[in-house]
């Protein structure tokens, strides 16, 4: 069953066309990893899906309904689609705990005590229980990134858009995130995950999508894409990537 369907999505910044007609279907509880060079449009695509960018053309179907039509209520969409940003974007004026609970109590109307329990559970899981009362500017890079992930998870969305969620984490924590992602999959959550870490993509993804210069060149299961990609360009990218030196 298709959960999220992207059809011919186009997005330009001025003269620069960043998404050149991208089409992709995500089945329910599928996890697709988005790979591609720096500047290839991964973050922009994710932002478009969450209606944070105004798209120039194309359709985005959520459970078959076009959410990209002008005038469609974006809040309803965003309650169902969570996002973790590459630059974390924590709220600096709130403690870590408040960062995690505000949206829960405000939007999902979770009772404060329950929201706090869920938040503490997530923080504990990410080894941050002792930082609950700290403010984001006092956290290390990896700690901020974990808070950002926890903040999105606390909203229990149907779909998660994850942008480079392990870039600031040590491998030990990457393992933890991997476990979390698998749990989420088991719960039926659909995920689109932009990443640079091929190992991570390989071990977690149902399918891997290769983005190059704003075009989706190839979508295939990881074994296929990492061993026998269809496109010459994919092959070359992976060759350089897997043996960079």
């Amino acid at each position, binding site marked *: 069953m298709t959960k999220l369907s992207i059809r011919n999505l186009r997005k330009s910044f001025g003269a620069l066309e960043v998404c050149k007609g991208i089409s992709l279907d995500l089945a329910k509880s599928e996890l697709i990893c988005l790979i591609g060079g720096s500047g290839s449009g991964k973050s922009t695509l994710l932002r478009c899906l969450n209606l*944070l960018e105004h798209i120039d053309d194309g359709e985005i179907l959520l459970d078959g309904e076009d959410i990209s039509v002008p005038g469609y209520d974006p*809040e309803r969409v965003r309650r169902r689609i969570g996002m973790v940003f590459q630059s974390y974007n924590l709220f600096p*004026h709130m403690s870590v705990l408040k960062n995690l609970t505000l949206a829960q109590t405000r*939007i999902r109307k979770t009772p404060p005590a329950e929201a706090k329990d869920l938040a503490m559970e997530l923080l504990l899981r990410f080894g941050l229980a002792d930082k609950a009362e700290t*403010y984001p*500017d*006092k956290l290390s890079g990896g700690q901020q990134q974990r808070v950002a992930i926890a903040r999105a998870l606390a909203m229990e969305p149907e779909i998660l858009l994850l942008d480079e969620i392990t870039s600031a984490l040590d491998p030990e924590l990457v393992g933890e995130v991997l476990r979390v992602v698998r749990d989420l999959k088991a719960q039926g959550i659909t995920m689109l995950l932009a990443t640079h870490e091929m190992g991570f993509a390989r071990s977690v993804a149902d399918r891997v999508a290769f983005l190059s210069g704003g075009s989706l060149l190839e979508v295939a299961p990881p074994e296929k894409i990492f061993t026998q990609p269809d496109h010459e360009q994919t092959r070359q990218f992976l060759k350089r990537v897997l043996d960079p030196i």
Partner: protein
Amino acid sequence: MASLPLRHEREGVTLSPRAAYEAALRRKSIRLAVVSSLAFAAAVVIFVPMAPGWEAVRTAFFNWDLLVETFPKLLQAFLIDLMLFAWCAPAILVLALVIALMRNISSPTLFPLKVFAIFYTDLFRSVPIILTVYIVGFGIPGLGLQAPWNSPYLWGSVALTLTYSAYLAEVYRSGIESIHKSQTSAALSLGFSQGDVMRFIILPQMVSRIMPAIMNFMVSLQKDVALLSFIGPIEVLRQANVFKALYANFTPYVGAAILFLCITIPATRFSDYLIARERARRTG
């Protein structure tokens, strides 16, 4: 650069050489501050009275007997200032926010509100406040309102509120726009409505940024309630003006200034303290 922490000293632990050196440096600079301030004060106290006109100036501005004589009445008039301030300030803070939010609208359907907000700030900032006070304070009641609806206190306060909120709205706007867009993105992505983003994410961050500017407005509003005296109420500056005209002496203004200082300085120090505490909590 990291400023030198005062923590160690307070805790009374034995100082490392590094901490001892820094403490000494700090003590030295405080000594320097005290000495140089005293030297400056001494220079003023010694040299200014040597000017030929000093005696006349002293009598005109710093006449102790007159100060004592006029102070009680000034103090009484000051209560009117406080009262006017007490209801104008909240009204201004709120109205300015409403205007700033309207100014910030990006949705095309609500565009007329944005136009109105621009028009409002342009108009009330450009028109001399004294004219606003005259038109609203004399003109509106002059249309035929009856007591108590023709009260100069009422309409004078309305005039002040209109003008001040036009200015303050622009300060709010610069505060709102100084919050990086990524904060809005993050909040929206969590499902917050535009209104909630404003209320929980933008405004709280903005307020602590523009606090000194807001205090500016409070400090100056406190004195601009004097403009109401043009349409009747006799508050402290008007009272000082009456005494000045009566005694041909400016000392009563000094009395008024003392009253203002007694409010302004504690209020500013307190707001600075709050900002510093907030900052320390956030960034350490």
